[in-house]
């Protein structure tokens, strides 16, 4: 079958899609957009998180045909048109929230969604919002730092502790 999508503002068409293919497969293997990752194929890990008509979804759980005509936003669409990183992307890089990075695309989408809804989230809000995104490398501490940093910058506040060039150490 043919599937028509608008991905990151660009209309795209995938042909010869088998009915069993997921939105994730079509993005990754047919449309040349491998940013969303496949790590569990059960909607448990959040690595394939994209926006579908504005809603966060696990692209592995959406049949490609279900997404016909939808607006999709992936990690490839987060940065500005001129290549400047979105604030949440910059914050992830600066705080060390990226190690292997396989979970990063999904976490970025989920964090961006949180900050759009809750501009100054408490830590418990961040944890709740990101609890569908597994990370195996960071222990999430730097991920929390990144979301706090992006939130503080959006509010014009000084960078919070833990976000500066020298992390907590003693003695």
């Amino acid at each position, binding site marked *: 079958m043919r599937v028509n999508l608008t991905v990151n503002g660009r209309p795209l068409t995938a042909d010869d899609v088998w009915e069993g293919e997921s939105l994730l497969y079509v993005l990754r293997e047919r449309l040349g957009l491998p940013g969303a990752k496949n790590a569990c194929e059960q909607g448990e*890990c959040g690595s394939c998180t994209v926006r579908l008509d504005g809603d966060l979804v696990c692209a592995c759980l959406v049949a490609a045909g279900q997404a016909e005509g939808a607006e999709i936003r992936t990690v490839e669409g987060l940065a500005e048109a001129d290549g400047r990183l979105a604030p949440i992307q910059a914050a992830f890089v600066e705080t060390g929230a990226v190690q*292997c*990075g*396989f979970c*990063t695309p999904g976490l970025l989408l989920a964090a961006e969604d949180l900050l759009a809804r809750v501009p100054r989230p408490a830590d418990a809000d961040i*944890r*709740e919002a990101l609890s569908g995104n597994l990370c195996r490398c960071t*222990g999430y501490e730097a991920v929390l730092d990144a979301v706090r940093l992006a939130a503080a910058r959006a509010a014009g506040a000084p960078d919070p502790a833990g976000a500066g060039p020298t992390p907590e150490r003693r003695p």
Partner: protein
Amino acid sequence: MGVVPPPSGLTQRGDTAPQATGGIGESTQRPDGVLKVTGEFAYASDLWHQDMLWGHTLRSPHAHAEIRSVDIAEALAVPGVHAVLTHRDLPAATHYGLEFTDQPVLAVDRVRYQGEAVALVAADHPETARRAAARIRVDYVELPVVHDEASATAPGAPVLHPDRTDHHAAHVPHPNVVHRQPVISGDVAAAAPTAEVVVRGEYTVGTQDQAFLGPESGLAVPAEDGGVDLYVATQWLHVDQRQLAPVLGLPPELVRLTLGGVGGAFGAREDLSMQAHACLLALRTGRPVKMVYNREESFFGHVHRHPARLAYEHGATRDGRLVYVKGRIVLDGGAYASSSAAVVGNAASLGVGPYRVPHTHLEAIALYTNNPPCGAMRGFGAVQACFAYEAQLDKLAAALAMDPVELRQRNALCQGDTMPTGQPVDSPAPVAELLRLVRERPLPPERPWEVPAAGGADGQVGVDLRELPGGLANTSHGEGIVRGVGYGVGIKNVGFSEGFDDYSTARVRLAVVAGEPRVTVHTAMAEVGQGGVTVHAQIARTELGVSQVNILPADTRVGSAGSTSASRQTYMTGGAVRNTCLAVRAEALRLGRRRLGAGQPGWDEPGLRLVDGKVVTRDGAVLAGLAEVLGDEAIDLELEFRHRPTQPFDRETGQGFGHVQYSFCAHRAVVDVDVELGLVKVVELAAAQDVGRAINPRAVLGQIHGGSTQGLGLAVLEEILVGPDGTIRNPSFTDYLIPTILDVPPMPVDVLELADEHAPYGLRGVGEAPTLSATPAIVAAIRQATGLELPRVPVRPEHLTGT
């Protein structure tokens, strides 16, 4: 679109802060960070070729069976299928392995574990390959399984590898024992009567999975010269190459590997997974072949952490001095050896923990069974032992009515002490200090779920469910919640031990490009997420005084870097980069003297340095710019770097200078336990670790946080459940639970930097030690809250409720 290649090189300037140089000791940013947040970083599973086929593996459903026949005719007839391979199609060597060559590339006449590879399919769509594989008819006759020590060593037990030729085979008590290592010091029999207090315990550690997020994957591309180019997510390119070449029947130089982007590793990529299979399919079909495991297949496609049973006896004086430790550690290696023998060596040699023990009698063994194969996982034998010996220390403290931290400090290992292996501890071992640091941290507030009630009168409290055990499942509003605090400390070796010739290689090129000196660093180090690429650039900047450093992709065109494991890469490949940079610097200075030194006495001074692209004297006087020194000449050197030699452990006594370096971490865990429902919330997990020198402080914290979290997972969540028939019950992220951000508490960290004079920059490997002590600290805290013995991990709700 042609090939989507792995990153073509990572260039970064050292200008993260105005005064920064981007050298060692700074928290410089990852050179691959921007690629990873924009989705452009090419993981091995993202690689694509316009002509490529998809490979799929047919695996055994049985843990132990004879194969009578394999019929591939129906599978071959499926439209879109290009090849189906069985062991009959193997062109050369039929077995491979890291240390023992005992694993069939494809099963011959017998499968020894559930998930063993039996046949391969290449097709034009992954679903076509899967469906064709389902049409392969394998006639199995099930065999009795061995699944623990008793069944593996019983009279008449099936021998899993009857024709062993490995170097341990002649020394083991039973052919189903992979390796046995005793460690004997002092005289336990003579000393035991002098112990005034004795505690005993038997402990069990479940099977943990590395659960990296990026499943096994790679793309094999056949080459015109008859060779193959493999782009793959691995931990050690050259050990893959060494195993692949004989299987493919090719000389090693025709088996070229390039690192694809790696989505985590933690030990699970040390053994081959899809490497040989994809190459075989590519060479057979003449087409590029991509293989990507899904999560379920990943659980069968790599080795796990050894499950273990441990029995310990600790004797001490009434004032809390350890007199002796007796112990026996049984590790289940599963069907194939992988790195089990080295895991045994670690468990035995580190088996008493970071304590001074005058008399020791330990024995560790690994079994061959029909359970899932086990091998490397972060902590490598030291994790299992740490859970048991730390439980014993708590038990001993209780028997002595002594504070558990004080008991540990009283017996804490120090520099100058001797390990039970006879190896002197010849660099800082701040065990007591690490315990002090975690204990002296302020405790988190009690009843953290109590919050001011929304709209309520002053003093009224509401409940934030997210701070409670059970969380948003709304299982408690604070009833039945008991707090506990526990401690743990551990010891891990760094680098490859027991006489292994452990080395790394770095090629460094210094040249002037567009009027500016630039450095190119080429190693085969597997960047798996740890940040080695960041560190290499920092080291090159520090040693060569050049801000712009290009890190080339890791491949087999340069010498081996050894494995990204054993907490060794910053020490070893970082050391190799430093070593080569020093040689390049010497060469640059020699060139400068020759070209510019005539009549310039400054060039003959000792201690010339390279700073900001210039040659400067010790006093800071500038002699020349590097551009002037080099002209159009490039300095390009490739050198190997070795750590100090180690020795094998004596087979009967375990004596020997077996380890390169030790690494220490301590944890304090604070938990809230719903004692009625058996639910645990870890409230805080504080760590203190000595890292010798933090080359990149932020990356160090990332390792400590990540390692601690994997220890938390083993404490309360993570276990591959294997039935008595050897089959896995929970091969998915729905049923195998790794910690989410809601399961992980705040993790404050203290970092000590006490230099190890034997190591580059004094650094100490960081990655594994935090994985050890987190687990026993959390379980100790749960014990304090519940009063239960809890001799196994992970602790599950039914262990707390007795239901």
